[in-house]
């Protein structure tokens, strides 16, 4: 069972969590081509954002007025409130689920492990669409109730809907980080507390919870970051968040400096969250002892297991069954009404092309990054890693705007090209590819390529005959992750893609935004299937992770 758990433990550990422990002073200097490659990638990641800053600094008075409006503060406040609420909600759902699936005799624990993690892969806008199409004013539920004579359901638009959807989409972050720690923590600690006279609950509060705090903090941070950057769900749910306001500002005004300035504010808010979490964590400064020697004792739930099952069932029902059911309902209804299926064909084609290219490029870019980090640990490597993962925390809408500005003004020949879009995807999701490649590379001991060198092969030959063949599974897994993430990506696609280029994501978003539920159902169904595929892949990948 411990091994079964380990699978779940590494699932989709978000890139931000995969920081290396700061390595000791490196003794070997990385070769120049490697440095040049990583530097180029770093520039690719940083340049658009730097340009955003320049652009915002050059904003005229009108733009500054726009920022100084009380409305800006209002938006910022509501976004931060949403982020905080989602972080809290994700914790409330995630921590008990983590505990139930690791430490108790919950019936069907293995299945619940998979089911409760699965929503991680469902894009928030698909969840939002499903919620509205299911529970909204013109949705399945109200339609059924109206036919029974019941009117006036409470509105799910606005804050309540956004909170619900984003919490359901992000609690797996907390679940995963907490699970990983629970499984690594030495059960002897709890036993020591028990032997010193603490009851079960007291020991949990005094020993286990403080050990879990950093993991919970990280998970909650990821949830909050997701919420503050989210663009798709909030716009479908008509919640006035900052990210949505940026999009509106960008679309409705000719002077785009205002949007740039707002986007920078959003970036600042995101980094403030990261900073706050890092501070809290440093204060906690807790280390979880590695390598539990034995599995922890299984806590018998007794009569509580019905409550536990109900809890797991509700969460899974809302985050998986409800969306799947709703999408199926509208799909069938749409087909019955003659909704043309071929409308899905084009977006599928566009999605496959863009995602395939992005996966390939990201897989290639991941190689030098992984090599630098694994083979030449040191200040330089950790800087490069932080930079790339830091760029990952930049909200998608801000990155999208930055790329629009940058391409329009600096590289106009790239503006609205597939090339730019693919590069943008690749750089954005690079940490995912770099993460799996890094894990695979760490499994190849440094002596293996050295042995090949001493047997008379040049560095390039060693790469071709030894390292790349051994890296293949990790590289493929990383590319697959990027592929799946790209297919689900929304803001970059909306703003950077060439005119007329529509992916499944933009299709769902556009149709759901306009209230065309039946039209949104088919692409949403495809996305849902892809999401499940990515969960399967992540779970499989988790087995190989060290």
């Amino acid at each position, binding site marked *: 069972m411990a091994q079964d758990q380990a699978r779940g433990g590494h699932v989709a550990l978000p890139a931000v969590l995969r920081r290396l422990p700061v390595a000791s002073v490196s*003794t070997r200097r990385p070769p120049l081509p490697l440095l040049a490659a990583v530097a180029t990638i770093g520039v690719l990641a940083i340049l658009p954002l730097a340009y955003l800053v320049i652009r915002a600094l050059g904003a005229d008075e009108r733009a500054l007025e726009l920022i100084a409006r009380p409305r800006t503060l209002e938006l910022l406040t509501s976004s931060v409130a949403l982020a905080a609420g989602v972080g809290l909600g994700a914790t409330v759902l995630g921590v008990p689920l983590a505990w139930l699936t690791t430490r108790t005799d919950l019936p069907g624990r293995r299945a619940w492990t998979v089911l409760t993690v699965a929503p991680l892969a469902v894009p928030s806008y698909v969840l939002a669409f499903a919620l509205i199409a299911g529970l909204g004013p013109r949705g399945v539920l109200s339609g059924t109730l109206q036919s029974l004579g019941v009117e006036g359901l409470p509105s799910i638009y606005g804050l309540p809907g956004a909170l619900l959807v984003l919490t359901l989409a992000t609690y797996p972050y907390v679940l995963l980080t907490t699970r990983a720690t629970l499984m690594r923590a030495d059960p002897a600690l709890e036993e020591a507390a028990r032997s010193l006279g603490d009851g079960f609950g007291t020991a949990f509060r005094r020993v286990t919870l403080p050990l879990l705090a950093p993991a919970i903090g990280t998970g909650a941070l990821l949830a909050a970051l997701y919420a503050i950057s989210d663009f798709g769900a909030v716009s479908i749910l008509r919640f006035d968040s900052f990210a949505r306001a940026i999009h509106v500002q960008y679309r409705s005004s000719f002077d785009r400096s205002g949007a740039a300035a707002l986007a920078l504010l959003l970036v600042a808010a995101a980094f403030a969250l990261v900073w706050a979490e890092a501070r809290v964590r440093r204060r906690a400064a807790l280390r979880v002892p590695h390598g539990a020697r034995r599995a922890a004792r299984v806590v018998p739930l007794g009569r509580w297991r019905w409550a536990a099952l109900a809890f797991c069932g509700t969460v899974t029902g809302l985050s998986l069954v409800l969306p799947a059911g709703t999408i199926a309902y509208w799909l069938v209804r749409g087909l019955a009404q003659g909704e043309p299926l071929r409308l899905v064909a084009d977006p599928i084609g566009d999605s496959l092309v863009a995602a395939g290219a992005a996966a390939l490029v990201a897989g290639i870019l991941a190689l030098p990054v992984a090599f630098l980090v694994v083979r030449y640990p040191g200040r330089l490597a950790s800087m490069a890693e932080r930079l790339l993962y830091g760029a990952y925390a930049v909200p998608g809408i801000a990155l999208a705007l930055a790329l629009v500005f940058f391409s329009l003004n600096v590289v106009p020949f790239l503006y609205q090209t597939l090339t730019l879009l693919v590069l943008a995807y690749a750089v954005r999701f690079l940490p995912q590819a770099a993460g799996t490649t890094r894990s695979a590379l760490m499994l190849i001991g440094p002596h293996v390529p050295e042995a090949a*060198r*001493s047997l008379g092969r*040049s*560095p390039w030959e060693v790469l071709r005959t030894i390292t790349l063949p051994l890296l293949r599974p990790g590289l493929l897994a990383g590319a697959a992750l990027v592929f799946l993430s790209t297919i689900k990506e929304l803001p970059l696609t909306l703003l950077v893609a060439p005119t007329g280029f529509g992916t499944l994501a933009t299709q769902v978003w556009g149709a759901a935004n306009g209230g065309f539920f039946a039209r949104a159902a088919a692409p949403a169904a495809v996305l849902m299937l892809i999401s499940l595929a990515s969960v399967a892949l992540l779970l499989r990948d988790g087995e190989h992770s060290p």
Partner: protein
Amino acid sequence: MSAGGISADAHVAVRLSGVEKRFGHITALDHFDLELPSGSMLALLGPSGCGKTTALRLIAGFERPDAGTVEVGGRRVASPGASVPPERRRVGVVFQDFALFPHLSVRQNVAYGIRRDPDRDVRVDELLELVGLRGDERRMPHELSGGMQQRVAIARALAPRPDVILLDEPFSNLDQALRTQLRAELRQILRDAHQSAIFVTHDQGEALTIADRVAVMARGRIEQVAAPEVIYAEPRTPFVATFVGVANLLPAECRGGIAQTRLGPVTLIGAPDRRPEGRALSLLRPEHFLVREAPDGPVSAQAWQVIARQFSGSEILLEVRAPDGQRVWVEAGGQVRRLAIGDRVELRLRDVETVAFAPSLGIAAPTGSGHREGALAGRAKPPDDQREQPPPGGPLRSAPEDHHAPPANETLETVEPPVH
């Protein structure tokens, strides 16, 4: 400085001259000189962290020296500013973890370095025969036992007929039962292949059994290079004396090649300029003592008391203490085997020849890894490795921790490496 030039004597497989290597603030090798005659086997012996693996990596070309030169097979392969890459050095390496290519079969692993050799298949067969792996050539590395993996690694390194083969702690990943057997096998394989070899170990038993010559290292320098017997019988420094075998360093007055100890005179050996005059410490191995049970009756002033006892199957070592606090480890044979802690014994010296160290050499304390274990009684092996069997060269054990030097020498705790 040109790398790759041909030097005069080609019968030297490896030569390091004045090599220095620093990692940040740490000096791994310091004025390091080493020479390996063609066809011979040298063990590089020293405590963890003394720089022995660094020396190996410099020869293989995985690191570059900060100063000094490295020659392999008569060619200069490294000097500051110029370095022949590993693939053109003709140096084979057997790593501690074997570093087999996990995606290649046994046969493909062995053939990896000789893919351009027209007689490749014959050569691979020959090597598989040599290491006793005929019939296993299609298996994958993960299907092999540790001992078999090691043999694949050796065959793979031998295949291109390198000028020298380097082995980094070749036995540390194998279990106890395998080690003794594989040591003899490895020696035979390398002999049959007329292969020059250097292997690194922190295990004196390994070093003394396999090598023609042993180089004892401490803190980035060579302390002594000599045949195993010489290393044991005539160590040049207190460090070597205590690192190899169990050593008692007894205060003595030396004059004209004779050291006068509290137990009588011993003859000093070695070159005259290595025999100290005046106050010194004489090296006495446990087998240099004759132990006799003290007669009943009043306790004699000469009586020693047994304070510790170590049984290792073939022999028994006793630690005994004189009334003035002096302690020594002695070998107990015959009827004194049954002596117990608290019993009193009388000691005499056999008619032995040994060495003595001038006080300026200090009391040996292998400080390289931070342990100060067994300053007097000798440190047989690093304390983290308790799996080794006694080698023929001398009893192996870690002495209890708190045995300090006699008061007269307490100020002399560390060894300064002597200048050669």
